[in-house]
């Protein structure tokens, strides 16, 4: 019986093995790139909102504190979106005929709430608590970026698991004095790594426990 395969098929079989491995590698690489791309993470994507609210104007321009509108950020898991009443606290006096603010006034008149589109939306299998991060000295800026420079709200961090874990492994880089949590940019003291480590100690951040699964998936 003659040979089943021509000697040239040796080269072909070697080539197909290498090509197969390469194909799997390329597929994994494409998946990783797309998964981290703004298409998937929606980083820097501006979402449609009922009112084009400018954080830049209210935070940097007027100097409003985050907690004026995000009432429950220190007390609860959810930072809180201001009730229409909070908007109307000022806007019944200023800009009260602005057409841009008509949805707010309409909501206050009719009792029908404004429907904002979530910009920072964690998956439902992730537990996140704002209050504990505030209490341990993590600034808003660490996850939300320079909100004081955003005319329209957008995400700047992916908020994917690797982003959370970066900080949960080495929180000393992101901690700041508690009274600087709600400040941005130059208003925050630059800390040396040693000072960051001191804050970890002072705020009793249990770094060893921070990467346990149940901390975020409960």
């Amino acid at each position: 019986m003659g040979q089943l395969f021509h000697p040239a098929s040796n080269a072909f079989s070697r080539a197909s093995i290498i090509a197969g491995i390469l194909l799997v590698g390329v597929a994994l690489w494409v998946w990783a790139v797309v998964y981290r791309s703004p298409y998937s993470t929606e980083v820097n994507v501006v979402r449609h909102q009922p009112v084009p609210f400018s954080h830049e104007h209210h935070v940097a321009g007027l100097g409003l504190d985050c907690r004026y509108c995000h009432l429950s950020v220190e007390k609860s898991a959810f930072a809180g979106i201001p009730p229409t009443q909070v908007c109307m606290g000022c806007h019944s006096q200023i800009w009260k005929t602005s057409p841009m603010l008509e949805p707010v006034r309409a909501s206050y008149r009719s009792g029908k709430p404004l429907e904002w589109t979530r910009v920072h939306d964690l998956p439902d299998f992730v537990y996140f608590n704002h209050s504990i991060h505030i209490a341990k000295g993590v600034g808003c800026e660490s996850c939300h970026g320079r909100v004081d420079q955003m005319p329209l709200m957008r995400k700047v961090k992916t908020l994917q698991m690797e982003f959370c874990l970066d900080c949960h492994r080495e929180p000393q880089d992101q901690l700041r004095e508690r009274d600087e949590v709600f400040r941005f940019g130059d208003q925050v003291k630059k800390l040396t790594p040693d000072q960051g480590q001191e804050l970890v100690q002072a705020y009793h951040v249990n770094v060893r426990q921070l990467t346990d699964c149940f901390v975020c998936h409960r």
Partner: protein
Amino acid sequence: MSETKTPSRPLDLDAIRARLSSAGNDEYWRSLEQLAEAPEFLEFLHREFPRQAADWDDTFGRRHFLKLMGASLSLAGATGCLLRQPEEKIVPYVRQPERIVPGDELYYATATTLDGYAQACWSKAGWAGRSRSRAIRSIRPAWGRPTLLARRRSCHCTILIDPRR
């Protein structure tokens, strides 16, 4: 159900005896009907469904239907592989009631009836995960007979929830 049941004939016992006594017969059998190879048994063996089962009288075959349903189910699961999260809305209050902290539970004292008697208890109103609507999540007694109330508290919670909220 369309066919009438065939009357069972008496078994051919002689043939059974002959088969059993034949040398080297190591076949297993589960009933005398099988052993006698009665026509009822053979019919039962070759029919896919028992005689009483309702017939699938649709031209669209049962297997074809299951095939399509299986495919659509697995494709529905594939939507979980989408790279983007679905858009979600945040709907705040217009006028936020007092004592409400969004995202936090609210406890208040109330009473619930147990065996016809009012029992003082604490009620916890929580935020139901995704929709963030408020619902009574748990009730625990202020005093007395905790286990009995605990046993019944889940049905109490159901009573207190307004399904049209």
